């Protein structure tokens, strides 16, 4: 008897798993509930897109034409407020003919900050570049040298002030934070307690109260006859505040370092400071660069609070520019959107950078 073998039918080809149709099926319409949700969200997105396009572009007035703006009120945006007041918003109270000075000074400061963010420039020349930059910055901003008219610090404002407060406070807070973080991990109880007290006290209160303290109480703390510029007081306040936060970030990095590293340094006969400077801190700081960036972003945003103690940085300058002018005041929302965009652009760039550096350090951990 012969057996006839018949091969089984081939299985059907699996459905396509690439291409737009498959993508849509997997990502938007995988089930009934998902499909309904997708359709609803699509509708909402479309509606939001169309109506904001209508408001911000189609019906909007772009020239600084007050009449046209008032006519378009309620229907379209009035971007004219930015061409009219933009300069005041971005520069604050700085005298108008001298505006080139803060522009150059801020560009210089931002440039140095940007190159400091690139690992290829992390070398011994960097501190020198910073020192030169700061000197040029203050000469340009304050004037009084080289035939530049002197501009008092209470005239500084707008975006240059925002950038300056962030960069200077951060630069000052950094060494403070390193010492406090080392102090918190020290095995001397008195020093540990002092550092812990500082960190916990500062982190427990809102930044506003620290700023109020800087503006109302620091003058009382000073010896008789000594007057400190309000800008300096605010920088001190912000530095003390962000120093406490950054100390905790750095402490995290110190804790993540394996004990073997300090033990190895001890067997090599390195002293405490040599160990910290050459072995511990470089590794600890490298692991927490993303968190330090987060503190930096937080600081950049927090500078908006100095408005409350009457310094006119970006947010404050906006209020200054619009509150005094009844004609343009109704278009505050457009001006707010404008500075929202500026803040967003800065912070988003910084958070992208933080992600990039995180990926870079992740690569170096792969063996």
């Amino acid at each position, binding site marked *: 008897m012969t057996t006839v073998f018949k091969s089984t039918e081939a299985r059907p080809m699996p459905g396509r798993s690439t291409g737009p149709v498959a993508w849509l099926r997997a*990502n938007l319409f995988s089930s009934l509930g998902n499909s309904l949700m997708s359709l609803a969200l699509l509708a909402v997105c479309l509606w939001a897109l169309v109506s904001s396009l209508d408001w911000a572009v189609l019906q909007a007035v772009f020239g600084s034409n007050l009449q046209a703006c008032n006519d378009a009120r309620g229907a379209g945006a009035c971007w004219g407020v930015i061409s009219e007041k933009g300069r005041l918003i971005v520069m604050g109270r700085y005298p108008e003919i001298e505006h080139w000075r803060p522009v150059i000074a801020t560009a210089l400061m931002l440039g140095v900050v940007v190159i400091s963010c690139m690992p290829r420039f992390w070398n011994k020349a960097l501190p020198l570049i910073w020192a030169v930059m700061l000197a040029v910055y203050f000469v340009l901003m304050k004037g009084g040298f080289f035939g530049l008219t002197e501009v008092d610090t209470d005239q500084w404002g707008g975006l240059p002030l925002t950038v300056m407060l962030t960069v200077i406070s951060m630069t000052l807070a950094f060494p403070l934070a390193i010492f406090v973080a080392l102090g918190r991990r020290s095995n001397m109880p008195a*020093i540990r307690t002092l550092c812990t007290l500082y960190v916990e006290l500062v982190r*427990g209160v809102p930044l506003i109260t620290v700023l109020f303290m800087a503006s109302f109480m620091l003058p009382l703390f000073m010896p008789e006859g000594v007057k400190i510029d309000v800008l300096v007081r605010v920088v001190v306040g912000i530095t003390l505040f962000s120093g406490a936060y950054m100390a905790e970030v750095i402490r995290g990095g110190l804790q993540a370092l394996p004990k073997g590293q300090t033990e190895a340094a001890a067997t090599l006969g390195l002293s405490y400071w040599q160990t910290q400077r050459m072995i511990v801190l470089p590794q600890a700081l490298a692991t927490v660069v993303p968190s330090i960036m987060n503190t930096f972003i937080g600081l950049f945003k927090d500078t908006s609070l100095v408005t409350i103690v009457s310094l006119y940085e970006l947010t404050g300058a906006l209020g200054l520019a619009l509150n005094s002018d009844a004609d343009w005041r109704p278009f505050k929302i457009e001006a707010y959107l404008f500075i929202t965009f500026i803040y967003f652009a800065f912070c988003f760039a910084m958070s992208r950078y933080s992600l990039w550096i995180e990926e870079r350090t992740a690569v170096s951990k792969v063996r």
Partner: protein
Amino acid sequence: MSHFSMIEARPLPGKKSRSISWRSREGRSVIYQIVAILSALALVALLVRNTLTNMRLRGIQSGYDFLFQPFGFDISETVIEYAHNSSYFVAFAIGMLNTLKVAVIGIVLATVLGVLVGVGRFSANFLVRKICYAYVEFFRNVPVYLQLLIWYLVFTEMLPDLDQAWQAGHFFLSKNGVSFPWPVWQLGQTLALIGVVLGLVFAMVYRRMARAHFDRTGHTRPVWAVSLAVTLALAVLGWLVGGAPNEWDLPKKGDFQIEDGGAFSPEFMALLCGLVFYTASFIAEVVRSGIASVSLGQHEASASLGLSKSQSMRLVVLPQALRVIIPPLTSQYLNLTKNSSLAVAIGYPELVSIANTTLNQTGRAIEALSIVMLVYLTLSLLTSALMNWFNASAAIQER
């Protein structure tokens, strides 16, 4: 034949020298500490001396006696009774209660929104994922103070006037804020509330019993359904015993304002929206990183047990993610509470705003700020303690 003799034992190490000298590590550390403490004390002494001199020179009075003088200003929102001649003390208490009010409501709402957005970033739906991502990036990267000002503008200028207030049923929304129906408080409501509390206590006891039963026999009991049913039944019972009051305080449109009912002022709404939308974007990131920290194997294992995606999220992933989530979540709660101090800029009478008025009125900067700082420090410590306790209960149980 050789004779081995034992090596002499090493002499006992000498007693460590206790004298403080620069040559020994211990000696140096003692000296460092003494110097640190002395310089801290000297700094404080110097500041106090300067302050006292300055205050004497400028004729600034000091002391907390002002607390019992009348505050003399109207406070737009009060949780407790406030009269025009109430003291600074009462004003500070009101400020603190207003801070607590916005912080508690804000923390609850921000947690709900933040968890939804954070979980949404793992959704299978492309649109949900991207919208959650865009939300986080936008709200995280704009200062909360600016967001607060924008919300304030929306609530005070862009909403319709009172006579054209948006109305949905008995809810009103206009430049005057939000109004909503509120039950007239009677014995029934109190008893219902007691019923709810008793129900929650029962739920806790029942849950523990069910857990013990499960450990013993391996059979589960319907904890949620039973707890909910008992709590509801107790609440309804309390309400019925109290005479089943069903009177509602309904808001009505008056000539100058929406009268009666419960109401939130535009300042409160602006502050609440600003804090909630901002903090939720951070909470979403905390939740996302917590979920991402649960290993892929756990997802796969729960899938192979036949759990649905939402079941595996709820029963397997989130409980493990909670360990990573709770500590940074605590910081976000503290941040929200502290950020409520920004309300000083939009005129919601919370603690810092009251202190600011006090400072301008009496010139007692040190006293006013010290009260504010003390309150915030206490709040911080209490929140941390509470969350640490919660953290301990979520921590991994090891043998």
